[in-house]
């Protein structure tokens, strides 16, 4: 500090500390919010429905092996739930700072915008992780009930991939949230993309243009379900369709899926941060 600068009463902490502070209080806000309990209720509802249906009907195909069980339970639900976490916790995380005017409270202090962005992202990750832990626990409870405590290593891989996918989903939803100042637009775009558009584009690109959809995040997320299959599906398969038409389907390999997920996180995190840094409180 130069001699002409005024001494401050408090010493402003490092950006890392400010990230932790933002994370702590944003998480507290999430943890007490209606959205957290709605998501928890959805997860418990899905878990209860699966538990009851499997327990009552005991479908032989699903209970034929532990892998088959985990594949049906986790492989189908985890990707959808992760998308919901992104929509619920990421959709308005940044746009809400503008629309709800909370940014005037959190950003008019000696704090970098990047610290607030990262802190909020970590809070969303933590809140999502708690709910994902609940789902994992219910899945494991059922798995242990039917197949004992010996877990297939593929389930561990699938859980890890899901958490990695969550990182990318939240990165992407924070990016879309930074694009808009209106929360409803941000949430709508995120929901449409993750629940419909990505899957539709993936289908059209693969089947009609016959191009591998390596640029779609949900394509990368296929590894979560695929890793739980008895035999990992082939990268490219072709089948004859109507008339002369041949359909090609693609399955991301594990390294490819991980690379797609990582790339989505890195690119969207950088873009989201840049957008948030440049956005003005007008």
């Amino acid at each position, binding site marked *: 500090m*130069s*001699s*002409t*600068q*005024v*001494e*401050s*009463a*408090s*010493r*402003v*902490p490092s*950006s890392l*500390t*400010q990230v932790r*502070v*933002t994370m*702590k*209080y*944003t998480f*507290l*806000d*999430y*943890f*007490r*919010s209606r959205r957290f309990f709605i998501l928890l209720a959805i997860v418990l509802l899905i878990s209860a429905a699966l538990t009851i249906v499997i327990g009552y009907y005991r479908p032989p195909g699903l209970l034929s092996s532990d892998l088959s069980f985990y594949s049906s339970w986790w492989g189908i639900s985890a990707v959808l739930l992760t998308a919901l976490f992104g929509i619920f916790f990421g959709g308005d995380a940044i746009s809400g700072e503008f629309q*709800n*005017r*909370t*940014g*005037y*409270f*959190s*950003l*008019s*202090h*000696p*704090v*970098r915008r990047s610290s607030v962005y990262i802190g909020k992202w970590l809070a969303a990750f933590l809140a999502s992780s708690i709910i994902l832990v609940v789902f994992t626990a219910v899945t494991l409870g059922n798995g242990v009930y039917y197949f004992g405590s010996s877990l297939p290593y593929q389930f561990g891989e699938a859980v890890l991939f899901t958490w990695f996918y969550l990182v990318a989903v939240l990165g992407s939803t924070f990016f879309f949230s930074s694009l808009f100042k209106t929360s409803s637009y941000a949430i709508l775009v995120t929901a449409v993309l993750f629940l419909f558009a990505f899957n539709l584009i993936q289908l059209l690109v693969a089947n009609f243009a016959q191009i591998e959809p390596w640029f779609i995040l949900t394509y990368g997320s296929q590894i979560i379900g695929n890793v739980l299959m008895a035999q990992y599906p082939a990268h490219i398969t072709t089948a004859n369709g109507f008339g002369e038409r041949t359909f090609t389907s693609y399955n991301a390999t594990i390294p490819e899926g991980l690379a797609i997920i990582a790339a989505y996180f890195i690119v969207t995190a950088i873009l989201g941060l840049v957008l948030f840094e*440049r956005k*003005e*409180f*007008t």
Partner: protein
Amino acid sequence: MSTKRKLNEPSIQAVGLTKRYGSFTALDSLNLNIEGSKCVGFLGPNGAGKTTTLKLFTDLIRATSGEALVNGVNVHTRKKKALESVGTLIETPEIYPSLTPREALSMVAETRGVPAVERKTRIEEAVSEVRMDEWVDKRVGKFSKGMKQRINIAAALLSDPRIFLLDEPSTGLDPRGMSEVRDIVKSLKGKQRLIFMSSHLLSEVTDICDEVAMIDHGKLLVYDTLSNVTSRFSGGENVVEVGFLRPIDGGVNGRIAAGVPGVTSAERVDDRNLRIRFSGGASTQERLLSYLVGMNLGVISYKPASSALEDVYLSLIKDTK
């Protein structure tokens, strides 16, 4: 106004500060240098550029050109350094609804680096200052706008900064709340703070500010002491309002006008207040005060008339249309 910064004096400085939105110029080459412990009222009609200026000083928006400096530090390029000794209240911020005032203020205290051992006391003091003690552990989501504004004011006070940037701090408050905010700002003046405060309330500015800056269409119209502004734009005349402890009779105003050279008129506002116009600056003021005290009517207040500032305001704003 002084042009050279004094050692260790709090200061804010706008250097050619300009903000454009497309073809609309919200702020046009603002040059303003405020330093020292004082309260500066920032006046102007809606859309004049007051909030834009304050947002530029807190890096909530970026300048098209020019610089906003706090204690000589550029707010945009070194925000953490520039705002470390600044308490802000811009527009009416919303607080995360699930948090209580104690938690929201803890967040601010931790962000600003208030030492852990002092946090609890500081928060309780700040909450007490804005009369929100009994609400400190209730969730903010259920608060009225006025209650939230009180917490926002507490947040600005929390780290005991040397500079305050306040954007219409009385907004949303009831008359009692407005009066309390005025008392808080007055007490800050007593603690040697620099307060830069936008307001629509001319009486508020007259009551608590030492200096006034007026802006319209993004251009600074005037920045000077309150008395200089009112005298400069009212033909060299000052207007003061004098309050008396005891009722005054109908002849008092005539005696003052006749008895004090320089007094051009003395008008009875009611049976305990007079509005006196005078020219001749400080020497007339001294004679006038001596005369008033000598009348043994119990002078209890002597302040520049808010109507004088209103006259200047209306005249300057009208001129720029």
